[in-house]
């Protein structure tokens, strides 16, 4: 097939979805030792993800071959090992320099050598949140839903039910639930502080006797 279909042309011409995220606190360093302040997250294509998985298998084989030949098949069958490798390769493809769209990290091997597990987990969480946002699936918890959770948790306090009800929530949902709970907590506290100030003001205000002569000295 020489000519591209209209759909392919359209798919190739549409801008790639991205989100720039401030990660200054994550402790990631550039080559010169300066802090990585912002990262651009692309959403990988399915082809990128497949490549990441294939690279993970290749890396697993190579890593195992350093020890014994019999470890190779073992490594290919180890889902945790493969998942970790795939994550590194997928993140290397997704994390971009916001200034030029080039990969933010030199190579997947560099990511493995220089980032610790927490940092990789942090990047993965951000990437997953971006995937949800790209899909229009950003979780949202309004006051009503947060209060419903609160009531459920308080009603079952002391049992294992509160934890069991929260356990299946994906991390992004827990994040939003937690943020929304903080927002509501803050708003309630502000409302209380304001009301207390009003009450104190009412107590402190001088009483005016009916019929008295205000502002006129004896």
């Amino acid at each position, binding site marked *: *097939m020489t*000519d591209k*279909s*209209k*759909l*392919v042309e*359209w*798919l*190739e011409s*549409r801008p790639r979805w991205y989100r720039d995220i401030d990660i200054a606190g994550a402790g990631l360093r550039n080559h010169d030792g300066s802090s990585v302040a912002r990262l651009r997250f692309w*959403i*990988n*294509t*399915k*082809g*990128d*993800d*497949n490549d990441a*998985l*294939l690279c993970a*298998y290749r890396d697993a084989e190579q890593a195992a071959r350093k020890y014994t030949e019999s470890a190779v098949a073992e490594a*290919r069958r180890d889902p945790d090992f493969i998942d970790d490798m795939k994550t590194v390769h997928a993140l290397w493809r997704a994390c971009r320099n916001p200034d030029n769209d080039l990969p933010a990290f030199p190579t997947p091997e560099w990511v493995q050598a220089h980032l610790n597990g927490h940092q990789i987990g942090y990047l993965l969480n951000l990437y997953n949140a971006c*995937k949800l946002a*790209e*899909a229009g699936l950003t979780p949202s918890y309004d006051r009503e839903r947060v209060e419903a959770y609160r009531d459920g948790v308080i009603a079952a306090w002391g049992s294992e039910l509160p934890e069991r009800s929260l356990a299946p929530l994906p991390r992004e949902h827990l994040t939003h639930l937690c943020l929304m709970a903080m927002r509501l907590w803050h708003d309630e506290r502000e409302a209380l502080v304001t009301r207390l100030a009003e009450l104190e003001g009412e107590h402190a205000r001088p009483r005016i006797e009916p019929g008295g002569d205000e502002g006129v000295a004896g």
Partner: protein
Amino acid sequence: MKRQPPPLHVAPERLFRLLLRSPRASLPIAPPIAGTPAILAVRAVHSLDEAEAIERHTGAPESLRPALVAAELTALALHEDDAPVFAEGTQMLRLLTERDAMALMRTTIDALNVISPSFRRIDEEAWVRRLAEGAKTGGNAEQAIALALCVEGNARTGIPRPEWYFGLPAGQLTDGQRLAFRAARRAVFEDER
């Protein structure tokens, strides 16, 4: 493995009509990708192409294989203005995110499950029974007779020539078209198995 039954959400008379189309049965679909400008057609896949799509990825890691095969079948089946949309499955996977790719493959495979039955995976008797039902109803009888009579020699015992009805070389008939022939025979000559 459970053999795939005929789709019950498609009326038998429509199912029979769909499989009578030549050169291939097809169904229009709106790609489930936000903002897509095109309406596409899913075309029945020849059994040899399907077999090749499956075999092409036999060496791939097991966890990748189903998606790669589905991508190849999607690329084979999806058409825009009578031409394939994607040159091959991997081209599609390079252009779409996982969510969009999976949605497009699911929509395409769902359509293929209607218009592209394959002898290697269907419950053949259930399909023929349902198609025969469709051959007798919805104004399909004339077409069913025309198809059923495509035999060389005696109408009952002659050599089957479904390719005459479809106007194609015998080797280009899809399994769906061959099924439609068997169903038409069943409908016209009730006792034919």
